[in-house]
């Protein structure tokens, strides 16, 4: 409570007693929680009143028994917040965090994720599948038991049992048996879940891309790990984080474990060849292609070589990790890469053969492949990465940090997990998209990927140089229109020697966007913060309106269409992108990787440090001899040209666009992505864009379509309230802000710290 008296009430207010203040604070908190519950009731309520009766939805949502549930939620939140300080000590006990994470993962899998591609059963979610599968006689009884033929809610009961066991193990610290039992059971249940789902899949007999069972397995395994941690730690506080400890113990081990799980599922559970009417595992695929003229090598691979290669890599990588043997590490990495290439070759071979015989509408190699092969590829990549990490790992004795420098040590330790994470990200970026459904592939290519590229570009302007640009989409538009012009799809035709393929338009788009950025920036960059925001916003609108209205040049509101897909003809290289969405994904990946590598260098260069200096204090930066206008112009122009590249890609991928693709809302969204992810942090900006473009598509299955934007707004709001520095805060900024948890007195934080916005 404030100690200042209120001027408007004339001063002479007497201070209340501390007990009274505490009571008032409690009452306020309670009111806040009940208000939250009320809003939640509205959010999960009936749709829309009518013109005659505006209050219809409101009454339906609030004046009904269901409001009682929300009131209970409100009370629960109130209690949790009030007793939070007492809960905290329990949370730092060994195993609590992985237990919570695992339980949450399983709950998410049981409630939100798809367990089958079949849309009949409540969009393929667990809730719809469970009763149906439990009653279907054709499914293996063990699997049916999982779905609940014994008790009506078996899977939930299983979750409850293991969580209770592990929780009890945490509570009664002297018993390690409970932990082992709980952990072991959890892992068994996870495998059971995976098995039950694969039984359903083979019963339903059509291609399956659901993630539910895999995520449930992951969750159960996490619970299992927490049980084992509890049993082994004997009550020691687990503050360092379990994965960090394993990583410190044997670098590469977590990767080996991950690779083992993914590879085993890929080899033994997933389908390798799945045309519309069947799901053939690797064994069945082998028999299917027997005697069809498949090359001997591929036949041998499908029959036995795949297993040999995988297990050899797994054992080598595991041994290398365990022994921390550099040479073994190199061997494991090499074998992993070779096996990966062999696997890809075989997949190309047999899917190409199937396509040659026009098997089930396949048009070329890589069609009709199941998820198994790709999973094995991912696993091999991860294993090879583990081997590489072991080979490159240098023994560094970390001295016990003095209390004062613990944060630096923690920071250094945190960054050590980076390479392992990078391996996982590379593996999933390469081999996850082919296993996704057509829908998700399209989302990846047309939404997530493009916005990631845009966010990387805007991060330079907003995150590093600290210039608020609300018209970023304009450069994207310029890039798109440049492509349309150079490929001759606008009313104005380029001179014949300039007719280019879309990829060749990239340098032109970069140059034009650079020029546009400088032209816009030169007169306006001396404006401060919010003025720059409104000018860039105006610029974005101007570009859009000009494109919309100068019909003789830009084809007006009808936009450009029939833009050819990208193609490459250089020497022996001859690639033409067509209808296959996946091809665009890999093209985009190349763009993103190039841009990320460039910008990563840029961040720590002289220029990057100059940007940081300007962002923090422009006057001081100028005083140290930085030419602020030039440096800011550079940020603007570099961001703009990235946006232009994204525009080229967008135009040639989508084929046709209108000025409506470049509305102001999109510019605002890109800014939101960058800040959501963590301003000034390259991984943050990418993660922010990926999460916030993925979320609406994910919500498609969870909430009514019209409500999606509302939920996204709520997510952004909550994120900023609880983690204002973003998903992955920039390291430099994290260091500057010191402790975000630090309690400041109200007057120092009454007005936000002036950052050069």
């Amino acid at each position, binding site marked *: 409570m*404030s100690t*200042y008296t209120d*001027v*408007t009430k004339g001063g002479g207010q007497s201070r209340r007693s501390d007990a009274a203040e505490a009571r008032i604070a409690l009452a306020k908190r309670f009111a806040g929680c009940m208000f939250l519950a009320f*809003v939640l009731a*509205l*959010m999960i*309520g009936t*749709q*829309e*009143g009518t*013109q005659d009766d*505006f209050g219809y*939805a409101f009454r339906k949502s609030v004046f009904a028994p269901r409001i009682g549930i929300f009131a209970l939620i409100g009370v629960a939140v109130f209690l949790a917040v009030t007793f939070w300080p007492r809960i905290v000590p329990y949370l730092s006990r060994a195993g609590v965090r992985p237990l919570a994470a695992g339980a949450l993962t399983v709950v998410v899998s049981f409630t939100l994720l798809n367990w089958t591609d079949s849309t009949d059963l409540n969009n393929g979610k667990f809730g719809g599948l469970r009763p149906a599968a439990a009653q279907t006689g054709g499914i293996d009884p063990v699997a049916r038991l999982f779905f609940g033929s014994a008790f009506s809610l078996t899977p939930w009961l299983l979750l409850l049992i293991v969580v209770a066991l592990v929780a009890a193990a945490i509570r009664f610290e002297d018993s390690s048996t409970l932990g082992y039992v709980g952990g072991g059971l959890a892992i068994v249940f996870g495998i059971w879940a995976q098995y039950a789902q694969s039984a359903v899949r083979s019963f339903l007999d059509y291609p399956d891309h659901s993630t539910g069972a895999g995520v449930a397995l992951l969750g159960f395994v996490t619970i299992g790990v927490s049980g084992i941690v509890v049993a082994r730690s004997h009550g020691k506080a687990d503050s360092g984080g379990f994965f960090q400890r394993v990583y410190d113990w044997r670098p590469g081990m977590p990767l080996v474990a991950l690779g083992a799980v993914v590879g085993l599922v890929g080899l033994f559970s997933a389908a390798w060849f799945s045309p519309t009417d069947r799901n053939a595992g690797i064994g069945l695929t082998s028999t299917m292609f027997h005697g069809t003229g498949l090359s001997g090598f591929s036949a041998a691979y499908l029959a036995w070589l795949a297993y040999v290669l995988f297990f050899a890599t797994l054992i080598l990588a595991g041994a290398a990790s365990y022994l921390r043997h550099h040479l073994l590490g190199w061997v494991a990495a090499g074998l992993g890469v070779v096996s990966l290439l062999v696997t890809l070759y075989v997949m190309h071979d047999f899917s190409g053969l199937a396509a040659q015989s026009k098997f089930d509408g396949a048009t070329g190699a890589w069609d009709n492949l199941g998820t198994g092969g790709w999973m094995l590829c991912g696993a091999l990549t991860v294993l090879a990465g583990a081997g590489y990490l072991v080979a490159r790992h240098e023994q560094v004795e970390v001295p016990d940090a003095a209390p004062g420098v613990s944060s630096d040590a923690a920071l250094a330790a945190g960054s050590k997990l980076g390479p392992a994470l990078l391996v996982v990200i590379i593996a999933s970026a390469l081999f996850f998209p082919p296993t996704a459904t057509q829908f998700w592939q399209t989302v990846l290519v047309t939404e997530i990927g493009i916005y990631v590229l845009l966010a990387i570009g805007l991060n330079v302007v*907003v995150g590093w140089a600290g210039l608020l640009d609300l018209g970023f989409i304009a450069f994207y538009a310029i890039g798109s229109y440049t492509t349309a012009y150079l490929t001759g799809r606008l009313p104005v035709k380029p001179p014949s020697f300039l007719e280019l393929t879309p990829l060749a338009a990239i340098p032109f788009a970069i140059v034009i966007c650079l020029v546009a950025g400088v032209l816009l920036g030169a007169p*306006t960059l*001396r*404006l*401060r913060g919010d*003025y720059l925001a*409104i*000018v860039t916003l*105006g*610029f974005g*609108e*101007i570009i859009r*309106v000009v494109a919309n*209205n100068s019909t003789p040049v830009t084809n007006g509101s009808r936009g450009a269409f029939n833009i050819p897909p990208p193609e490459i003809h250089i020497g022996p290289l001859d690639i033409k992108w067509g209808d296959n969405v996946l091809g665009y994904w890999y093209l985009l990946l190349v763009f993103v990787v190039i841009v990320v590598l460039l910008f990563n260098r840029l961040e720590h260069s002289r220029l990057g440090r100059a940007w940081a200096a300007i962002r923090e204090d422009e006057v001081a930066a100028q005083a140290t001899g930085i030419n602020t206008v030039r440096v800011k112009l550079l940020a603007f122009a570099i961001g703009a040209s990235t946006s232009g590249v994204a525009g080229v890609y967008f135009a040639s991928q989508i084929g046709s666009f209108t000025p409506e693709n470049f509305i*102001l809302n999109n510019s605002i969204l890109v*800014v*939101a992505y960058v*800040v*959501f992810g963590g*301003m000034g942090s390259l991984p943050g900006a990418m993660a922010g864009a990926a999460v916030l473009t993925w979320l609406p598509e994910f919500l498609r299955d969870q909430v009514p379509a*019209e*409500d999606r*934007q*509302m939920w*996204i*707004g*709520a997510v*952004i*709001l*909550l*994120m*900023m*309230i609880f983690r*204002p*520095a973003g998903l992955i805060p920039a390291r430099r*900024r994290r260091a500057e*802000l010191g402790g975000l948890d630090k309690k400041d007195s*109200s*007057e*120092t934080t*009454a*007005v*936000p710290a*002036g*950052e050069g*916005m």
Partner: protein
Amino acid sequence: MHEFLNYVVLGLTRGSMYALIALGYTLVYGVLQLINFAHSEVFMSGAFGSYLVVNAVTHDGAHPAWYGVIGILVLGLGSGAAVGAAVAYGLERVAYRPLRRRGAPKLAFLISAIGASFFLSQLAGKLFNRLNNNDFPTYFNVNHHVVAVAGVTVSLVQAIIIVSALVMMLFLDTMVNRTKLGSSIRAVAEDAPTAALMGIDIDKTIARTFIIGGALAGAAGFLFGTAYFFSNTMGFIPGVKAFAAAVLGGIGNIRGAMLGGMLLGLIEVLLPTFPWWHATGLIGIQWTDVVAFLILVLILVLRPTGLLGEKLGRAA
């Protein structure tokens, strides 16, 4: 000439609504140095709130006597202002205060406001409806000409908007310059830590600033709804325009916001209808926004702190 004057009236009508909204941007900017991006939703919720109240007491085609019209107007403006103030206060508590406590970077405020803006506009859409042409009950003849001199006409609704906007702005100006609340707002705008040392409760002052700005925007929502339509996405475009108006006048400057709003309204209406351009077809109506923004950019390049300079403290 009379055509020109008619357009001036139209421009002033739009301009006074922009000015009312712009005041909210400027007030908040004055004390927090932040753009309250969710302000447009405060405007929207004012329209919805006042509709619920007005629709409860009157109905389509009711033509009450003049005192009835005034009564409904006061009721509509009051309820719009109340709802706007409540929403603005809620915004401050939920989307701004927690971030202030955490010392969040400045852009985080902007993004939390954008999140709140999405949330509010879509929640209103979910609760009421997502049509984009809801009408207020026509309880009086909006197109009745109050003034008709030599071809220059001012319709009733235009008169109501301009007069009530002027009254509210006068009220606000007096409040900020003459009352203790006003001086505490100006003190916080000038130098928050020092104001705190002088015994001003900064949190309360900020909340009150939000409430005042929200009330004005809510009332503007009622006026806008009466004149045109209302919907859950109505706030976006007037919001952007009002923000531009606030910048034009010098953001953080109350009189600047009034001037900027009026000017922007006039520019928007007069530019595309300017006699000789109109005749030669040089500038069609679709270029309005472009020209308006170009003028804004020009003014900013020439006078980087807006027309009247930017400090709320100095406005007095």
